[in-house]
């Protein structure tokens, strides 16, 4: 950035755009002369049984020294935007800041250096902490039982549907295989149903973005296995008919699966178990501030009521007097869904986070998340089209309808935000509105940050009104990589080196 750019605006919308140098692929950096690791050769003859597997040609691993390798990845990371570099209002993804103290707790040697197969009596402390999380998640969600096994939210969905299927089978209702999913649902819902051998019927949302009771009634029949509902839903709206919805599904002989992705809007205030839902997965990273999985360890624990309890995965963590144990054999269980009892390190962070708030203060997470989202909604509601009236929960939904009149689309607005130093909101989701912009600030942001973001959004809206739209179509110009050709990337992806 040049000195002349460093006016108030530049400071107000502060973000890093890293070191602006092109970075070659690791393979392009490679120079065979300097391999960083020298493996010893094989001593003596290779055992006959293994000889057939002996590599005939070099593996093609790039030859680089350790500092060269480290620098490559650190340079790449400087092009990135994360929650530590700036505001990250990605709706439906809940990119909340993860307090560092939780990392410290998870790294305590007694928790970090144990093995999943260690004898129970040597890991009583870790089991106690996991058991606590299990009990607290049950209390927060309003269910008597919780399994910590599933390793992600979508894995929790699959586990929940497996339990529902097992329950229906036990009732002799093997023909019930239809899962009703509102058209605003996360894409993982129908995917989980399909993976569980069931098929999905989509429910069209009502004019207020919520489940339409008449549409639901019309689709309930003796083939209905379950309804999957997200509450609050992906439009940031609370499904106010939730009790009647659950009653209708139960009367029709089905069960209600709760997608708990948005539990952070309810935590400590309202409990899905009290609303009539039979089972709920919880995205620990969204509600309890553990890092996002992103291919690493995640957690999607599932809470269930008494109806589904017999089918929970094993092993289960149980408490007997003062000792903790793993209970392995339960005849009606769907079995194990993970090679261990769950992602222990993630739950240690969640335990630290919940402990820090305590029973008295946990509701402040939900209150502040909802307040922040409504603050943004209130400041932007005149400049941007709001498809569904009323207060929102933890995220607010806008569209590009007003800006469309000036030829500006959601994608342009998102890209301009990058130039102003913010990660864009979620775009084009949920699918039930055209040109969706889903904004989720989370409870961890200050009013100053929210105001800066709103100012940026209002500045973009004003640019549209003034007809000053060329820059919006060009954006972003500040990051090292500018507007990427998403279409070409999907149609002609380059996935191997050399291309």
């Amino acid at each position: 950035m040049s000195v002349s750019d460093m006016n108030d605006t530049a400071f107000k919308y502060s973000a890093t755009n890293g070191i602006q140098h092109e970075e070659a692929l690791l393979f392009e950096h490679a120079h065979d002369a300097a391999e960083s690791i020298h493996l010893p050769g094989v001593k003596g003859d290779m055992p006959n049984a293994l000889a057939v597997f002996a590599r005939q040609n070099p593996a093609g691993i790039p030859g680089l020294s350790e500092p060269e390798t480290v620098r490559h990845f650190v340079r790449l990371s400087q092009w990135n935007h994360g929650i530590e570099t700036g505001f990250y209002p990605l709706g439906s993804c809940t990119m909340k800041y993860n307090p560092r103290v939780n990392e410290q707790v998870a790294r305590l040697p007694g928790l970090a250096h144990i093995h999943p197969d260690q004898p129970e009596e040597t890991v009583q402390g870790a089991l106690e902490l996991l058991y606590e999380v299990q009990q607290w998640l049950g209390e927060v969600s309003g269910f008597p039982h919780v399994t910590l096994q599933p390793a992600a939210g979508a894995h929790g969905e699959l586990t929940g549907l497996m339990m529902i299927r097992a329950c229906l089978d036990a009732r002799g209702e093997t023909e019930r295989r239809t899962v009703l999913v509102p058209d605003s649902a996360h894409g993982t819902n129908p995917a989980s149903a399909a993976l569980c051998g069931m098929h999905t019927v989509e429910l069209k949302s009502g004019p207020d973005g919520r489940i339409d009771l008449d549409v639901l009634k019309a689709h309930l029949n003796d083939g209905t296995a379950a309804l999957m509902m997200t509450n609050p839903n992906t439009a940031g709206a609370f499904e106010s008919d939730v009790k009647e919805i659950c009653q209708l599904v139960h009367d029709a002989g089905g069960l209600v699966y709760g997608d708990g992705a948005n539990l952070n809007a309810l935590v400590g205030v309202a409990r899905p178990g009290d609303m009539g839902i039979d089972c709920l997965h919880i995205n620990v990273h969204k509600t309890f501030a553990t890092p996002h999985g992103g291919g690493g360890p995640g957690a999607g624990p599932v809470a269930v009521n008494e109806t589904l309890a017999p089918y929970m995965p094993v092993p289960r963590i149980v408490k007997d007097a003062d000792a903790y144990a793993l209970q392995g054999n339960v005849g009606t269980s769907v079995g194990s869904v993970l090679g261990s009892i769950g992602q222990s390190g993630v739950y240690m962070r969640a335990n630290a986070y919940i402990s820090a708030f305590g029973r008295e203060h946990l509701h402040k997470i939900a209150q502040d998340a909802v307040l922040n989202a409504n603050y943004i909604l209130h400041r932007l509601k005149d400049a941007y089209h709001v498809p569904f009236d009323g207060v929102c929960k933890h995220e607010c939904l806008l569209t590009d309808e007003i800006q469309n009149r000036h030829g500006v689309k959601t994608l342009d607005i998102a890209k301009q935000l990058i130039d102003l130093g913010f990660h864009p909101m979620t775009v084009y989701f949920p699918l039930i509105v055209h040109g969706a912009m889903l904004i989720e600030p989370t409870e961890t942001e200050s009013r100053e940050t929210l105001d800066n973001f709103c100012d940026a959004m209002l500045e973009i809206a004003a640019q549209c009104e003034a007809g000053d739209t060329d820059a919006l179509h060009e954006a972003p110009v500040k990051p090292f990589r500018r507007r990427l050709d998403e279409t070409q990337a999907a149609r002609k992806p380059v996935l191997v080196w050399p291309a």
Partner: protein
Amino acid sequence: MTISANVKYTKDHEWVRMDGDIATFGITDHAQEALGDIVFVELPEVGREVEAGEAYAVVESVKAVSDVYAPVAGEVIEVNEELEGEPEKVNTDAFGAGWIAKVKVIGDGPVELMTDDEYNTFLEE
């Protein structure tokens, strides 16, 4: 956006062109415009029997993945294999080179199809 006069329409923005007992399916120009750049089309298998209203194909754009529903019941006799390499044909020529599948019609045919005028009115609503 164009609306072809030679085909019938569904409320889910598919079109069907009848030629004797052979029906050709595709998605409308309005649909491709709403979806944005199409990057992949999952075609049905030849020989598969589809019900009217059943999802027989999937179109994937940079924004979304959508099921495509059969306007009439029939047996798939041909699919547009060119879409495997050039899915953009759905964008550039939705009613022509962007056709998806041909079926031999089975049964009494469609239930609720619209003419071009009716579809135009439907879109305006």
